[in-house]
């Protein structure tokens, strides 16, 4: 048999084998048997040197044709088999997508700090910085420098925790001391006025202490966010505008604010701020005790005495200060029914926020 006929037969056999291959592995066996190192077709290619010169062109052509045909067939068959095998593999890998996924437990922020973060962001946006102050204060920073000297009647408004004074100084009132747990974050105002250059735009969130037995609506330790602005040309209108903006940011744009004249030793004029009740929208309900309003902060223009004591000229500068209760916001915004939950560390409470 002539070589060309042999080649023709080999080609036909190989194409049949390719068509018959059911898996990519079987197909690979066919390829190796024909085109591998010691494959049949490879043998012809290698032995071209022994083919007589005059036949060489024709045989060469036949070998090449056979190789091209086989390679094409292999390629085509492989594509078909690959696709089928991929489908089969994916079929086998299908899952019940309603099974639970793999979740990384992420921890939660405490509600109070969450509110402090939120309020801080609002004030950062308004151009304020954040300050801190000590929780154990001297009488000077908590009262005196805030225009409430010893025996000032406003002092009996707050029940103060007094701390053993280890310096040996004696207090004028029995059972009291020159060192105390701060009853308000307002002392930070004084630190800021003493330590910072003007203008001042600052808030000071922090823990404060009052001698109240813990019950659903009182805690002996809670949080305030103090604010202080001192600059040229600050007006009572600026105070109103700022707090109105902040209240709307916290509680929602539909809420209203109202300013009630009040008294604080370190601001004058002073006011308390109410936000309209979110339940009854001002009609009066149980939440707001029928008034339509919820008290949320105290504020006022910085008293000139406070500015003067810290070396700021009240004829040139004016300012405003405010303080809001963070737990109060927690109650109003998140309906926390019992403030003591904030200090229990109950995982089922903490993980809600």
């Amino acid at each position, binding site marked *: 048999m002539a070589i060309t006929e042999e080649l023709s037969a080999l080609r036909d056999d190989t194409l049949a084998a390719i068509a018959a291959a059911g898996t990519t592995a079987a197909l690979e066996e066919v390829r190796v048997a024909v085109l591998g190192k010691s494959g049949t077709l490879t043998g012809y290619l290698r032995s071209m040197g022994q083919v007589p010169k005059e036949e060489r062109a024709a045989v060469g052509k036949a070998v090449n044709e056979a190789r091209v045909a086989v390679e094409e067939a292999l390629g085509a068959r492989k594509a078909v088999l690959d696709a089928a095998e991929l489908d089969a593999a994916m079929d086998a890998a299908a899952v019940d997508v309603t099974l639970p996924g793999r979740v990384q437990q992420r921890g939660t922020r405490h509600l109070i700090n969450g509110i402090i973060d939120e309020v801080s962001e609002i004030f950062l946006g308004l151009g304020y*910085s954040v300050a801190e102050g000590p929780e154990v204060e001297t009488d000077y920073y908590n009262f005196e420098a805030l225009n409430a000297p010893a025996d000032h009647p406003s002092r009996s408004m707050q029940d103060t925790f007094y*701390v053993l004074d280890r310096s040996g100084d004696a207090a004028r009132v029995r059972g009291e001391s020159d060192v105390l747990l701060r009853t308000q974050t307002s002392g930070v105002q004084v630190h800021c006025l003493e330590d910072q250059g003007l*203008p001042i735009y600052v808030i000071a969130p922090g823990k404060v202490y009052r001698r109240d037995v813990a019950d659903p609506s009182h805690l002996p330790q809670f949080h305030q966010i103090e604010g202080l602005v001192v600059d040229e*040309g600050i007006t009572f209108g600026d105070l109103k505008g700022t707090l109105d903006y902040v209240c709307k940011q916290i509680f929602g744009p539909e809420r209203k604010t109202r300013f009630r004249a009040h008294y604080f030793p370190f601001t004058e004029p002073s006011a308390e701020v109410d936000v309209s009740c979110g339940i009854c929208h001002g009609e009066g309900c149980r939440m707001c005790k029928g008034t339509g309003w919820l008290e949320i902060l105290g504020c006022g223009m910085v008293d000139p005495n406070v500015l003067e004591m810290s070396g700021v000229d009240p004829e040139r500068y004016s300012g405003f200060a405010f303080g809001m209760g963070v737990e109060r916001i927690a109650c109003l915004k998140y309906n926390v029914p019992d403030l003591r939950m904030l200090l229990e560390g*109950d*995982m089922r409470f*903490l993980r809600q926020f």
Partner: protein
Amino acid sequence: MRVSLKWLSEYVDVPADVKALCDRLDLTGTGVEGVEKTGEAFDHVVVGHVLTCEPHPDSDHMHVVTVDVGAGEPVQIVCGAPNIAAGIKVPVACVGAVLPGDVKIKKSKLRGQVSCGMCCSQRELGMGSDHAGIWVLPDDAPVGAPIADYLKMGDTVLDLEITPNRPDCLSMTGMARELGAMYQEEVRDPLVAMAARLPEVTAGDDVAGTVTVEVADPARCARYTARVIDNVKVGPSPDWLAERVTAAGARSINNVVDVTNYILFLFGQPLHAFDYDRLVGDDGVARVIVRAAGEGEAFTTLDGTDRVLTPDMTVIATPERAVALAGVMGGLDSEVEDDTATVLLEAATFERGRTSRTSRNLGLISESSMRYERGVDDNPIDVISQAAAALLAEVSGGTVRPGVVDVWAERTLPRALEFRIPRFCAMMGADIPRDFIADVLARLGCEVAVTADADVLAVTAPTFRPDLEREIDLYEEVLRLWGMDRIPATLPGSPKRVGTRTEAERTVALVNETLRAAGLNETMTYSFAEPADLERLRLPAEGLGEPVELLNPLNAEQSVMRQSIVPGLLRSVSYNLARGVADVQLYEAGTVFAAAEGRKKPKERKRVAGVLAGAMGDAAWNRPRVPFDFFDGKGVLESLARELALPKVRFRALAPDEALHLQPGRAAEMMADGAVIGWVGELHPLAARAFDIEVPVTVFELDLGALVKAARPARPYVDVPAFPPVSVDVALVVDEGVTHERLVQCMTSAGGRLLEDVRLFDVYRDEERVGAGKKSMAYSLTYRAPDRTLTGEEVEKAHARLIAKVEKATGAEVRG
């Protein structure tokens, strides 16, 4: 303060709309804490006409009466009062009435006789103290008329919160003035007319011969006046007087005491009535001395309490003994009693600070002390005393002894202030008319005059307003009465402000984020602690300072400030476990306190602590439940180290005696760049048990300040590798005592520049295969050069050198 609107309306027109009045009061600075309507309690109480009155058949003192109550058929009532009689008119509480004290009137039977109501005494109606019998009404009382209407009892009493700067508002006349300014209404001050009812007292001066007043220290008592009223008959007050003091919140006691209270409520001037005879000495002269109390001086106040005084306090005394605690409370043995015939009436003013301190030191707050500590004006005292004496004589049948002793050592003068209108308007951010300003200040009692400068008003503040000391005080007055709601809202216009977070704040935020990313939930616990907390935790107190002690703690469990956050967190673990929550992951960042002898204020440090109990979560279909152990705690700290880019982080094993609170062998100290950051470990079972915890707890506590200090927030860029790495795995068999840290140190130093990473991937122990007391540590070593692809020979050479050094240094053997 309780303000009866009926009473108030004698001095100023009170708006009929109580709700609107309350709103206006609230907005102008007088908080309304309660609104009480009296007279409503007397529904179903009417004027009745007794038609018949027969003795009760089964009682020797009761009567059965029929009463016409203006509702058709007369009703039958059983009555026990002795003065009941046919023909009289009486208040009758019909069925359905509820009398003061929540007495409900129902149809009942008394010893077999039906009773459909009750004939009332004054006291049963809560009016006065007369309980002797039925209240017999005048004959012209209309039968069937509601008693509240007939007696004009209907009243509204406001409970007002008077801020400490407004002593003037602690009086009816002061509130009348306030309403006058609020509503631009005229005010009718009764003082002059009341004083005028005592025209004779200035004629003679009999008092001067019988009473002397000596004020030892004028700084304690700016003015002291005394008058004497003779032939007093102490007895019940007239109805109008009892009604007034009751409406103001006091109890009607007797005519003398009620007059002093009436004047106090009316003018804000505390008075004290002494039994004159108890003050008079052997020579017939009453010597009143205002002096400092002696150290330890004993005194019994009229509430019967024995007090021990200090020199800070002021007493009213005779030469023999103290008779009153000045400005706070009278003494038991000189008070007016039923047989008192002569009254010495004190009207004085005492220094604010000492009164406040006395009141706070003794825990004794009275209507008097409340007013004195806010400031009582010395100027009108003589006139008020005159008015009071006149009234006292009228209601007690007494006569006023002519003359007054008046020691006026320090006179308060009105303050002259200026009011710069443009500055005021600029500071408020609104144009408030000059006319309004002048009018409202005048209504508040100021004298307002024009000056050469049209922009400036000359204002003289009245002496009854001690709070009006400066121009700004006047601004507040005008603003609150103008209405804060009328000021347009603006934002500060300064271009100079920028909102920034400091580096430290950002680092603390990153610490918080990292802990939460590690699955820990932030909590807050009490800053208070129990003194035994550290001992209970077995935490060495070294370096934690002395505890900060509270002088007035709420309870023993919260009597000091915490020195560690851990005890609070352990209480929360216990709280959760007790409620069936087994998986607890908590952290808290907060302040701890360290006092030191001789130092006034303690050091405050920020700490962050965490506790892990149970596991991160329950087992799931695709995830086993892995209980927390030491390495979970350490892993949290390693995450922090990575996120904060802490330099040279080391964990040093803590010896058992260094960390008694931790389980031996599972305790480590975290260091960064040689500085101690904190500790981590599994809690010692005994410490856990002391907090009622019976499960393993992994705990850490770090110094937040040290973390912030060590953090390297800005990290320089390092080239991303451009050439491939070569990984070589090696298992080293070493003695148990050889630590991972030691092996890594050896490998790192021996590996040279080519060794990029050392990763432990297995620890294997087997007595047979590895040997007793030995462990096999399997490491994956990564070699790489930054500038070329490493050849096989280079890696083999470096690795062989590394192995040789490690073997030599640690006695390790390479496991085949």
